[in-house]
């Protein structure tokens, strides 16, 4: 309430106008495409086995990436929220790098490390996991581009948990593990969940890094690209609409639910 102090003066009106332009620029393409779609064709597309397979693969691969990110990213987020050390800013900067590394270049870098003939690729290959043109490759690409969102969100969540709550728990007899699982984690849970949702959605969105590692099996963004290249806009549109709807549902709906819960 405190925030609503400005009267609707010229500044506010100008800003509303400018802000509306960029807001419309974001939502009009998405909603116009969704609402211009023929529901019949959409339904048909949904039952196209190639489409179904691609979408399920996308959701599944992104979910695995999110799971791996959760197990490895949450501990890192906790450390970054609680400790100060030399070079922390640099570590934090590097963690955000995947957001801004050009996607195809990221794909090349991952291929270079995880490809059959290289380094870790050959190590994994010896235990039967290979990354080129496989689901594992898709997961790795998705994990790489989407992990910063989970780490950043979980870190903010842990930062909001007063360290003195943990201190009190310790004095009451809780070990550092008990303190983490009974106090820190439950209290940061909503931020961690938001981060997971964001990470999952971001994984689904990836294209550039994935096609370098694995054009096949085909994920939905690749399928859209292939249909666009082969048949043109009209045939790629229904798949795009479906995928946008799925992203919107995962992102806006789940996130809104999480935030609504936050306000009790």
């Amino acid at each position, binding site marked *: 309430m405190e925030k609503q102090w400005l009267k609707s003066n010229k500044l506010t009106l100008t800003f509303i106008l400018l802000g509306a332009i960029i807001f419309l620029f974001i939502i009009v393409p998405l909603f116009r495409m969704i609402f211009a779609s023929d529901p019949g064709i959409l339904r048909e597309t949904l039952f196209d086995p190639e489409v179904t397979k691609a979408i399920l693969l996308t959701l599944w691969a992104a979910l695995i990436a999110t799971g791996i990110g959760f197990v490895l990213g949450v501990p890192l987020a906790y450390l970054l929220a609680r400790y100060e050390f030399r070079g922390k800013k640099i570590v934090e900067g590097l963690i955000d790098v995947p957001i801004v590394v050009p996607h195809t270049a990221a794909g090349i870098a991952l291929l270079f490390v995880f490809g059959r003939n290289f380094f870790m690729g050959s190590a994994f290959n010896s235990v039967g996991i290979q990354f080129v043109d496989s689901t594992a490759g898709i997961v790795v690409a998705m994990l790489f581009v989407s992990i910063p969102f989970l780490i950043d969100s979980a870190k903010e969540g842990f930062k909001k948990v*007063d360290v*003195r*709550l943990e*201190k*009190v*728990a*310790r*004095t*009451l*007899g*809780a*070990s550092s593990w*008990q303190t983490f699982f*009974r*106090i820190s984690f*439950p*209290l940061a849970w909503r931020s961690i969940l938001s981060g997971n949702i964001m990470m999952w959605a971001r994984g689904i969105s990836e294209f550039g890094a994935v096609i370098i590692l694995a054009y096949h099996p085909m994920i939905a963004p690749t399928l859209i690209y292939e249909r666009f290249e082969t048949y043109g806009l009209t045939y790629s549109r229904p798949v795009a609409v479906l995928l946008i709807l799925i992203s919107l549902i995962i992102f806006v709906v789940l996130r809104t639910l999480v935030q609504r819960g936050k306000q009790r």
Partner: protein
Amino acid sequence: MIRVRNLWVDLGEFVLKDANIDINHGEYFVILGPTGAGKTVLLESIAGLYPLKEGRIWLNDEEVTKLEPEKRGISIVYQDQMLFPHLSVKDNITFGLRIRKMKPAEIERTLSWLAGLLGIQHLLSRKPDTLSGGEKQKVALARALSVKPRLLLLDEPLSALDPNSREILQRELRSIHEEYRVTTVHVTHDFEEAIALADRVAVIGDGCVQQIGTPEQIFRQPGSEFVARFAMVRNIFRGEVVEGEDGDARFRVDGVNLSVVTGHRGQYHASLRPEDIIVSHAPFPSSARNSFVGRITGIADKGSTLLLTVKVPPDFVCLITRNSFDAMALSIGDTVYLTFKASAVNIF
């Protein structure tokens, strides 16, 4: 008994240096210092929640310097309570008991004892964010007592409360302590709070322990200018203690000689509490050895009492009640007599 030896705590911005404190078993010990004097850090260091730079800590003859906080048996209550927001009041209070895997029946017994002791039975199923400040602080206190600590640390427990709740909780703290004699270290910046609660007081400031003593000693015989200012001794003079003609000591400041009781001679400070000065229209015969005449140059209204600044030549600040002030019809420029005992002047 708690012994703290040569404690150095590094706070980044400044360092608490070489602190030595002994606290007796069952004692209510108050640490008094201005905001930002490192009082919280001192408590957290004792509880093992803050890394020591140097120093050792003993608790009942067991050295706990390197012990994990969960193994020390030291509870802490913070100014802003730090109740676990996702747990009910009941689950907050029983947190430490459940961690210890105590039997449900025993947990229930402890819970109902604490709830009765602090009068919070009606709050048990509530969530912390629905409580008032005073209620929260009672719950935090119950939670801290639940584990039967060897030492209870209170970090400005009354500062965030409104005056009413503060008085109530202060009485509560006193009576709980009188009944159960849990060794308590209470940190505050409030001088009155310290006086009202403490068995002994340590004044810390400028990164070190300035003085340790009973409230009476801190109040009447501050050992440094820092403590004197903190105890609101408004008359602090810097001057010289010399031998009078009668062989007794005189404190000379601004050409005035005060009769004092001290064995010291040379450059010293003198402090004199404003309420120890009697203000009158005329000199009157009494056993008090100091009597001066001066002019009122300032009047500060404090409600029930007033502070007069009287220029003798040094400025004396005197406290009088509103009744006397009204009765004497004083105003600025009036000439008044100041009388006080030689023993009221503290030399340090």
